[in-house]
């Protein structure tokens, strides 16, 4: 191995209430290497990089940076120590220009302390040229596409002369050409001795750019090895370990009559002539890249955002759904992508969250009947096995999986039978995921139908009866999950 160790993690543990996210993890990063971190969602990759980048503090273990024990206090502290991180969610100031973003907080100033804007632009041009990127340094970030924004973020980290660079799925929204450019840059950084921690789900990429690989599973290191010593089937086996069947306990339900039909649904620049039908007892998987219109489709069907044209039929009857109230009336329930921001009122109790859309059922002349409300909550706490001290526990103190169950309980309580689940298992641990899948099975077994929006392809393939792939606001393909490979779905999603 070239060079010396710049970062060493020893016996790292991280515990969250109810979950051990990392369990005795050892990890080394050499100078000038690309070290790939591999694992399913929930395996502990993000937790590990959040500890390295100072966003989380470790529960126990030691971190040694260039031979010196380091106790990273905050993301700012990590930056000072030369550890840069590029997360999937971009952290750019959208109203500032590309150049201003790259040098945010490090603006060159003249003698009077005034920002030298010309110098900012000149410096930005240099950084852009080094990567052969054709982006106008004076363009505002808000006017760029996702891929370009990602590149700006990478340029920002590169310009900070980091010793360690963490890239969290940097290619997920990039085209092949852009990926090439990114890889060129990564190779240049390697030459300079920068250690790179690289997270990606795309196995083929790993062999192209990686030097070593560490596979995590359920918070433990399963294996660390040179990339030459493994092949892709080894890696997949190490990552999954369980049979896919065990992971996705899919049970086919009786497919019944049509529950929902969407015709020519269009919202200018967002959704383009969407047509599909959903049967009773069916789980319809919808996937596609970030920004392909998946979530926008859910919001349009649920009446959150207006539509320009198109029709929605529920149980064969035409509905004009212009508000979530109307959607709920039609029997729809929507579990949003981000449960904390959109799904739950964290400061309210479990029972108050569950009863929120169905208060009419437990109130009389606008007065809430506390006993009925408590009974309603208790019923669903038991039915969905929500782990809580009782109906009065605040939702914010529940674990992710249990919060997700509260959202499901909310819709069950108002007798929804068409569910839109947007990323239903994001950010919850493996065991809780399986419980959510089993719940989905129960729902469809009762004759409900589910639209499951997800970017996790194994989940989409493992749980759906039928798969739609979206790309640029259109449905780009329909697939049968029983004979489809992840790669084909990805290609369809990329529009290739």
């Amino acid at each position, binding site marked *: 191995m070239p060079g010396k160790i710049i970062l060493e993690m020893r016996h790292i543990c991280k515990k969250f209430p109810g979950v051990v996210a990392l369990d005795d993890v050892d990890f080394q990063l050499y100078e000038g290497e690309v070290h790939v971190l591999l694992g399913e969602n929930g395996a502990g990759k993000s937790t590990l990089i959040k500890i390295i980048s100072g966003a989380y503090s470790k529960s126990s273990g030691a971190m040694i940076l260039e031979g010196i024990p380091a106790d990273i206090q905050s993301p700012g502290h990590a930056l000072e120590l030369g550890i840069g991180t590029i997360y999937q969610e971009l952290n750019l100031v959208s109203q500032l220009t590309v150049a201003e973003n790259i040098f945010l907080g490090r603006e060159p100033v003249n003698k009077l302390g005034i920002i030298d804007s010309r110098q900012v632009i000149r410096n930005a041009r240099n950084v852009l040229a080094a990567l052969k990127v054709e982006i106008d340094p004076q363009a505002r970030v808000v006017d760029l596409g996702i891929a370009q924004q990602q590149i700006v973020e990478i340029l920002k980290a590169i310009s900070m002369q980091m010793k360690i660079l963490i890239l969290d799925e940097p290619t997920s929204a990039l085209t092949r050409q852009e990926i090439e450019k990114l890889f060129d840059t990564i190779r240049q950084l390697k030459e300079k001795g920068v250690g790179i921690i690289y997270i990606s789900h795309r196995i083929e990429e790993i062999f192209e750019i990686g030097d070593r690989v560490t596979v995590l599973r359920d918070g433990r290191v399963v294996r660390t090895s040179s990339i030459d010593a493994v092949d892709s089937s080894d890696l997949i086996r190490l990552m999954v370990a369980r049979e896919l069947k065990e992971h996705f306990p899919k049970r086919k339900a009786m497919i019944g009559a049509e529950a929902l039909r969407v015709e020519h649904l269009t919202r200018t620049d967002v959704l383009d002539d969407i047509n599909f039908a959903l049967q009773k007892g069916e789980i319809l998987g919808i996937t596609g890249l970030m920004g392909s219109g998946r979530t926008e489709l859910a919001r349009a069907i649920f009446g*959150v955002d207006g539509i320009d044209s198109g029709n929605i039929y529920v149980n064969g009857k035409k509905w004009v759904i212009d508000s979530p*109230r109307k959607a709920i009336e039609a029997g729809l329930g929507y579990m949003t992508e981000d449960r904390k*921001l959109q*799904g739950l*009122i964290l*400061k309210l109790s479990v029972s*108050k969250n569950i009863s929120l859309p169905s208060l009419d059922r437990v*109130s009389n002349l*606008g007065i809430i009947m506390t006993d009925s409300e408590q009974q309603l909550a208790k019923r669903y706490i038991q039915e969905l096995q929500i782990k809580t*001290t009782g109906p009065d526990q605040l939702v914010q103190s529940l674990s992710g999986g249990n919060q997700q169950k509260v959202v499901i309980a909310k819709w069950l309580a108002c007798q929804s039978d068409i569910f839109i689940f947007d990323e239903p298992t994001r950010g919850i641990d493996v065991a809780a995921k399986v419980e959510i899948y089993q719940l989905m099975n129960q729902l469809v077994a009762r004759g409900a139908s589910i639209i499951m929006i997800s970017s996790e392809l194994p989940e989409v393939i493992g749980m759906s009866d039928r798969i739609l792939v979206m790309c640029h606001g259109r449905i780009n393909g329909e697939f049968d999950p029983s004979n489809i490979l992840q790669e084909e779905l990805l290609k369809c999603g990329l529009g290739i």
Partner: protein
Amino acid sequence: MLLKDKMALNYKRQLGTLLGLIALIGIFWISTPYFLTVSNLLNITRQTSINAIIAIGMTFVIISGGIDLSVGSILAFAGVVTAGSLSAGVPIFFAIIIGMLLGFFCGAVNGLLIAWGHLPPFISTLGMMSIARGGALLFTGGRPISGFSQSFRVFAEGRFLSVPMPVFIMILLYILGHFILTRTKLGRYTYAMGGNEEAAVLSGIHVKLYKLFIYGISGMLSGLAAIILTARLNSAQPIAGIMYELDAIAATVIGGTSLMGGEGTLLGTLIGALIMGVLRNGLNIMGVSSFIQQTIIGAVIITAVLIDMMLKKRK
């Protein structure tokens, strides 16, 4: 959780503020024996009642995630219009209804602008603060309207079961408000939209309509407070109620309601209003100059909220 435990938990959060109130009373009692006489205590509650009534609406507004800067001006506007109606010979009952409806109307316009016009509550109610004040001045030509019948002045001077009328009204409204906030859909939705507006909308709550209503109630309570004030002073001033919005906000936040929305109680607000009232009255009795009073009240507001936040964090 048992109901008893639940109540204990709810009260625990008010305990700090309540202890603060008791400590203040203790300090003033030691300083001036007159402070703790029945007549002075009645005086304090009577003086507090107007701010306390306005603060009920403010608590609803702040829990819902907003703010209402227009309450003081609405009070003045509703006061002079009620007074004008009385002077014009309108029967007392109808004059009061007119004043309260005007308050509701002004508040509802706030709600309309905030919910449908997507204006920040600060801006909308700041505008209304000026509009309603202008309305009051225009209506009276800048002069106060004075001299009302004894049967109107009962709202300030009268007693019910030997409790002064304003205090009686205040207690009644707090009981009603507490019930609405804790036991009705309106109350629940107030917490929900303040805690997470997006989640409330996605749960099918007609957030816009409820906002209109909440700001309307805030305005209506200002109209009611105007009637008590007018009856007490036997005069309606177009420049009445200046800075009342800040007193009401102070009472609400001292009482533990978060300006971020989503949490708070009316019991806390009542204690907060009483703390403000006791402080003013006690400092007056001790002959502290009004300049120093201002400073002390400001320091008390900051300290109370600071302690509340530290307690919450530790939890």
